[in-house]
């Protein structure tokens, strides 16, 4: 396990690389999903407000 984490002495470079991937791709994903969900919610509330219901 320690060997795995040490990455043959290159841990300082390998793990930040994977960390950067997680950060960049993760935030892109979270941002996309949150934006979609919030748009869905807002559309639903706008439709509820309109007299005659959703179009």
């Amino acid at each position, binding site marked *: 396990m320690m060997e795995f984490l040490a990455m043959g002495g290159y841990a300082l470079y390998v793990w930040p690389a*994977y960390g950067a991937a997680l950060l960049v791709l993760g935030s892109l994903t979270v941002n996309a999903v949150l934006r979609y969900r919030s748009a869905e919610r807002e559309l639903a509330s706008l439709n509820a407000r309109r007299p005659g219901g959703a179009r």
Partner: protein
Amino acid sequence: MHRFANPARFMRVSGTVLPWLAALTALMLVAGLVLGFRAPPDYQQGDTVRIMFIHVPAAWMAVFGYSSLALASAAALIWRHPLAEIAAQQSAPLGAGFTALCLITGSLWGAPMWGTWWVWDARLTSVLVLFFLYLGYIALVHAFDDPSRGSRAASVLALVGSVNVPIIHYSVEWWSTLHQPASVMRLGGPTIDRSILLPLLVMALAFTLLFIVLLLIRMRAALLERKIRALRLLEAEAAGTEYGFAAPEVSA
């Protein structure tokens, strides 16, 4: 082409397809990571070769992203395809993210391998230029009060900048660079070992699927936001006529 132009149809089709694509993406990512960490360390580069499993697919996605951006921009300008503009604008931040990831991981790989965090060789410089092209595109879209003017100007920029794409790919051949020449995307076929090639291709597939999934989600969100804006305008119009104001001129 015009069968897919209908936004409502796009929402329906993408809504059905999305959960499956997302599941497949997650599966591929896990498979790629497992294969990547189980591959034997390279005799020359040691365990840093595992950075390649992020760096190379990210680089491919950076170029793939820009190519889709340019194609969608061409479709928007030439055929006025309604979804093309949305596809182009929503793919730009994704492409920029992959390019940044490519630059960061490349730097982290270069530090132990070349002894330097950065070098101004042709490949790195043209990828940096690509990153600035993405940023310039995004800035241009939002730079105008009239959003449609911003979209059209940005589409022209996307096409002008696409001249950088072949430069990126061939830069390692045309100039003697520190960056290694192509070992996968070449005419003779890949020259790297199967145990490294397989995780690489799986991660590349995973990244491509992720790009498509995120693009579809962003396009769906953008279409919903358009609907919201239209409904808001209708509301404002109705409120205005209540008070005796005439309906305002609405530009789509």
